[in-house]
């Protein structure tokens, strides 16, 4: 019978804590860029000008139909040769996950904006607002509220996806686990502890998301996405 011993893993708690911090930092940064970029992509795709709508559609489709790990490898190993810049694992991961989540957020934004009744646009235009003003002052504030549940779900997905950076040696929580398991020769305890750590953080986020969703549902706001 195997005897479990978590003491060697606990001795390297600092490494794992740094790993968790890096995971959260990457998730937060990719989320911020992803939302901003996603709004831009959504507006381009909704645009009536084909030279704006078409490339946005292409980016969205390409990033939704290729595996995230392939994208990450492309940005880490191939992109530096194309552009001629040095890529760090963090930068490659940030670029990949920002664009990738932007592609998903763009669809959430689009569904949200399209869910707002035509009358809201018409009324804004009748008050003398131009398209940009109507979007910023009238449509987006209403649409964003409906999009919150889809956003939170995507943010949780993003956090799980960030584990892929361990394959290009960025020191996230999973990579720290590899290191600790090699140092301690205790892969069972290390990976079990790390799986539980991920579960705690992500489950906590899910519970929070569910509560917010419930509150939104009660306040009578429909949801999209």
């Amino acid at each position, binding site marked *: 019978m195997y005897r479990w011993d978590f003491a060697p893993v606990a001795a390297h708690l600092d490494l794992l804590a740094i790993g968790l911090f890096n995971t959260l930092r990457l998730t937060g940064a990719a989320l911020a860029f992803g939302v901003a970029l996603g709004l831009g992509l959504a507006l381009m795709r909704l645009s009536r000008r084909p030279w704006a709508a078409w490339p946005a559609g292409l980016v969205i489709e390409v990033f939704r*139909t290729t*595996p995230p*790990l392939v994208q990450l*490898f492309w940005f880490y190993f*191939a992109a530096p040769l194309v552009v001629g810049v040095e890529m760090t694992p963090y930068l490659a991961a940030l670029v990949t996950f920002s664009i990738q989540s932007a592609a998903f957020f763009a669809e959430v934004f689009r569904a949200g904006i399209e869910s707002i009744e035509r009358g809201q646009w018409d009324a804004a235009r009748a008050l003398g607002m131009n398209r940009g003003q109507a979007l910023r002052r009238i449509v987006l504030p209403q649409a964003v509220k409906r999009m919150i549940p889809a956003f939170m779900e995507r943010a949780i997905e993003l956090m*799980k996806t960030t584990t892929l950076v361990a394959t290009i040696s960025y020191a996230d929580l999973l990579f720290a686990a590899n290191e600790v398991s090699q140092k301690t020769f205790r892969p*069972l305890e290390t990976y*079990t502890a790390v799986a539980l750590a991920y579960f705690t953080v992500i489950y906590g986020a899910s519970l929070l998301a569910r509560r917010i969703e419930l509150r939104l549902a009660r306040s009578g706001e429909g949801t999209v996405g």
Partner: protein
Amino acid sequence: MRWDFATVIEHADVLAIGAVGTLRIFAICLVLGLGLGLPVGLGRYARNPWLRAPATAFVEFFRNTPVLVQIIWFFFALPILLPFQIGPLTAAVLGISLNSAAFSAEIYRGGIQSIERGQWDGARALGMSWLQAMRRVILPQAIKRMLPALANRAIEIFKMSTLASAVAYVELLQQGKLIASLYYNPIEVYTAVAAIFSVILWPLVQLSYWLERRLKGGE
């Protein structure tokens, strides 16, 4: 910078072996993931707490941990508790299938719960047992509503199959890594690999869009 796909085309056979590996693991995980999801989903829906609690724990655990962590756990950690080794394919299949089962369980549960109570009552009134009512009346109607979500799951499973490369299972991305490390042509290789994935996934994505549109039109 000059793009040169000659070495990639020369080694198309290496990529073809990878593509077979990708399709194999996709097929296994699709069947196991969507297949296991149904009993788990029914368990989530059961009135008996002895069935419901473990099903709920399973779903919550596998939905709220990253797949890559699960695959790595099955590959490096689980064999310590077992008297035998676990290969890359088995570890990847375990991780991806159980993860997909947890997600599809929620799809089945939602689909079954969306069927009106009256359908159950009608079936029971005709003398059908619970299982018969489920098989003959509820599931055929529910499956139609679940199809778009299940198609999306299939797409996710296909994309997840690349994670098997993290435990050195021979699939498309793994073979791409091999060629890139031998010929120093990452741009062409990874572009080609991305394109192959896109080409295989494109019809699947279109199918899911079509199913979604049809559902919206039909309901």
